[in-house]
């Protein structure tokens, strides 16, 4: 019994400590960003690593998500005789929710784990120490460029996700099911609001970009410098990022809708 309480206590302290350490790294990253601004090539290189290499998984998933949305949506909407509204349904679901959220979840699994493993291994093989001993700050040189790359890449990927998802929905709704093409697009155009839907979706994806990238960087930077430590950190990146994305999504949505 006392053991149990002790465990709960020490785990709580541990988690709070990690939260603080993560926040500290976040702050350090922000104030060490001058280098990334002065040398944009450092960032573009990482945008390639995190963004471009996630393109395939993002596009394929988006296509399927869009098709499923159209199938499910049609099934329900036709009961009420409003199957032309399917374009609106697909677009709103993607732009407001599924685009940012699913992209962030896939991003955590594809790019986040890669970041954690890379930084963890750089630490385990003393590359970060070596940099420090050369009077080069690993935070400005390694952490900050990856952070900004993630923050740039995720909104772009989310936009792409929505676009390809809508294309997938179109292919199912119009050629396959036979919904009127004009109604599909015009209803979508009339009912998707720039400020309320699109801008809010972009805000979400930027916030998710900050959260996912920072979690991945922190887990790598904080990992014990062993093979086991790095592999655990990689797992934790996926778990923590996913939970953070879903919780943040709830919080952001409630602010945006009310």
């Amino acid at each position, binding site marked *: 019994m006392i053991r149990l309480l002790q465990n709960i206590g020490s785990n709580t302290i541990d988690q709070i400590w990690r939260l603080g350490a993560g926040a500290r790294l976040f702050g350090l990253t922000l104030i060490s960003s001058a280098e990334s601004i002065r040398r944009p090539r450092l960032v573009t290189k990482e945008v390639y690593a995190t963004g471009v290499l996630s393109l395939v998984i993002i596009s394929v998933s988006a296509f399927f998500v869009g098709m499923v949305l159209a199938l499910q949506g049609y099934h329900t909407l036709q009961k009420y005789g409003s199957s032309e509204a399917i374009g609106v349904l697909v677009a709103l679901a993607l732009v407001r929710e599924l685009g940012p959220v699913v992209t962030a979840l896939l991003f955590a699994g594809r790019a986040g784990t890669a970041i954690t493993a890379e930084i963890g291994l750089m630490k385990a093989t003393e590359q970060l*120490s070596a940099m420090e001993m050369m009077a080069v700050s690993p935070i400005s040189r390694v952490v900050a460029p990856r952070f900004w790359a993630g923050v740039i890449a995720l909104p772009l990927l989310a936009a792409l996700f929505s676009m390809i998802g809508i294309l997938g929905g179109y292919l199912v709704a119009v050629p396959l099911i036979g919904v009127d093409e004009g109604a599909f697009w015009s209803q979508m155009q009339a009912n998707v609001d720039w400020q309320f839907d699109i801008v809010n979706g972009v805000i979400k994806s930027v916030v998710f970009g900050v959260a996912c990238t920072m979690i991945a960087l922190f887990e790598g930077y904080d990992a014990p410098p062993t093979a086991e430590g790095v592999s655990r950190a990689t797992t934790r990146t996926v778990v923590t990022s996913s939970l953070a994305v879903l919780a943040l999504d709830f919080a952001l949505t409630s602010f945006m809708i009310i």
Partner: protein
Amino acid sequence: MTQNIVEIDKLSFGYNRKLLHKGITMSFPRGKVVAIMGGSGTGKTTLLRLIGGQFKPKAGEVRVDGQVVHKQDREGMYQLRRKMGMLFQQGALFTDLSVFDNVAFPMRELTDLPETMIRDLVLMKLNAVGLRGAHDMMPTELSGGMARRVALARAIALDPDIILYDEPFAGLDPISMAVTCDLIRTLNDALGVTSIVVTHDVEETFSFADYIYFVADGVVAAEGTPDDLRNSTLPFVHQFVHGEKDGPVPFHYAAGDYKDQLLGPDA
């Protein structure tokens, strides 16, 4: 200009409550090769990192060029580190950069030299370690000994006054070992630097070091020139130099009674 470029003064340090170093005093005269020897896990790597200012001592201090390392601000610390080049145990080459870019890294990050001059300097440094021909290889394509030499070229990229070597011989074949040995001595004399070599290879160390410190249990257990130490009657030094498995440093890690534990109720 002080005569000793690095001085360690009654230094105590531990990662947690348990102290790893309990009042170590050493001095490293300019232009000499000084070796620090001791068993695995006695905190030799940590000692090098303390010299580089990566940790703060619990007590005592390290002085480099007369300046107390842990009292420097960020800028001062970076100034001090520019005087040092460190060769890490496994090389610590940046795995995403080629051999050339690894050696060029400190020059590109810390100087405003034009790219043509960097090119010449990198090739010179690589030539000094005999690996000019490997300039476009990636670190993963190198053998252990070659990686170590590239790392050495990187450590001397900005002409440091002090070179810190962390177990430069560990895991090398006999030929690479002899090459590295030679290289340390040659670089030291040709560049006029001070070399601090952490190692536990007795033969090699005794053949090239000017002065040797033995570390055990967090203190300096013995020190002297190789000749002094070879003839030393201190039991600890005798055990280490002759590689005997039992002696003042016991084979068994401290444990309870063997018979009790085997026959005991819950072992």
